[in-house]
């Protein structure tokens, strides 16, 4: 009996199942390409917009050491954005298109950056919790099926652990300081805890794309799995700091060998996703403004490069 030749889709899935990475010029289903462009560009936008809440404190960092560290961290986030835009560009989209989609509001970025950074302790919470959550999301992405994305994530992950540690150190310093400093730390944790849990995305039962993404090995864990991991990691760290996680349902479950915890306020989650968070407007405006005010620099650099090239050609 004659066996049917496998379709391109079947061959593709077989490569994925064998953990063979997909590279830019390989054949891939259109939906795989689209999913990746959406996810990678969203991730890149998050790195870019993520610079804003921390940039807010660079000029007001409490010491030169903290200022240098924060500057280096924010510069890293710009770098992460660039690695990721490059990875997305290998799929056939352009930098210009991605930025246009961000600026028009068509493309999303992580909702966490639509919350304001009100006190210095927020720099601690952003590093400790937000980068901590990002790391949990990102480590499995180092093995994601698309080669350029996986390679970009390896570089990102190497740099992220300093981000989390400097945040934890800020929290630890505050918690070992005066009562008012410790209070500031607790107050920041109260505000950041739930939004950080939202970073893992909607519940598995409400995340229709998860199944396909897992099948394509773009994703390796579900949103709920990662959220649980995060809680299990963070509750003991908060205890070490002498802080209380703002969720009275948090309790060690001996049977599950994991922490039980309360329900995220999903109404708030969707409201922020849809553009109604505290800072959505401000963040987008800051991005658009930076882009527009930088236009003349980009044009001038190109004109300068063109002139120099023309001169070189004449000289030759």
């Amino acid at each position, binding site marked *: 009996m004659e066996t049917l030749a496998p379709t391109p889709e079947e061959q593709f899935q077989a490569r994925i199942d064998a953990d063979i990475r997909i590279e830019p010029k390989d054949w891939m289903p259109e939906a795989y390409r689209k999913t990746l462009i959406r996810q990678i560009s969203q991730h890149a936008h998050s790195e870019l917009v993520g610079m804003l809440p921390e940039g807010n404190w660079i000029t007001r960092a409490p010491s030169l050491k903290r200022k240098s560290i924060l500057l280096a961290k924010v510069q890293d986030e710009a*770098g992460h954005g660039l690695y990721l835009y490059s990875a997305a560009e290998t799929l056939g989209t352009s930098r210009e298109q991605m930025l246009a989609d961000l600026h028009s509001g068509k493309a999303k970025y992580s909702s966490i950056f639509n919350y304001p950074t009100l006190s210095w302790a927020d720099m601690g919470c952003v590093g400790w919790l937000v980068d901590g959550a990002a790391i949990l999301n990102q480590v499995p992405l180092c093995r994601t099926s698309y080669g350029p994305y996986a*390679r970009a994530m390896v570089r990102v992950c190497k740099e992220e652990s300093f981000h989390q540690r400097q945040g934890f150190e800020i929290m630890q310093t505050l918690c070992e300081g005066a009562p008012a400093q410790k209070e500031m730390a607790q107050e920041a944790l109260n505000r950041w805890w739930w939004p950080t849990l939202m970073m893992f995305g909607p519940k598995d039962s409400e995340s229709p794309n998860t199944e396909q993404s897992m099948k394509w090995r773009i994703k390796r864990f579900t949103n709920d799995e990662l959220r649980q991991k995060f809680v299990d990691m963070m509750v003991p760290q908060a205890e070490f700091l002498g802080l209380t996680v703002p969720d009275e349902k948090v309790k060690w479950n001996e049977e599950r060998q994991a922490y039980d915890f309360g329900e995220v306020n999903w109404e708030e989650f969707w409201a922020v996703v849809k553009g109604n968070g505290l800072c959505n407007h401000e963040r987008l405006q800051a991005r658009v403004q930076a882009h527009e005010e930088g236009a003349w620099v980009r044009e001038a*650099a190109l004109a300068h490069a063109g002139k120099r090239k023309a001169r070189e050609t004449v000289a030759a």
Partner: protein
Amino acid sequence: MNNSEWPLWEVFIRSKQGLDHKHVGSLHAADAAMAVQNARDVYTRRLEGVSIWVVESKHIHASNPDEAAEFFDPAADKVYRHPTFYDVPDSIKHM
């Protein structure tokens, strides 16, 4: 607006004297000098390199992945190119 996009460059970095340059990613820059400088800022913030090459992406020519099987086929059936193909008597040393 479209003509104001800086061209794309591929970046190669020598991590250590004595090693070869390795592709690390790409970036946009108006010209080669700017590409080298941007590559330093984007890809070597933690002493990852001692030397940088950049080449405009449009100048890279690549083999076709759809033809990879036929293209690399000539090497597939020549096991005798590998030392493990040969039986060396146990008593023979230094080979």
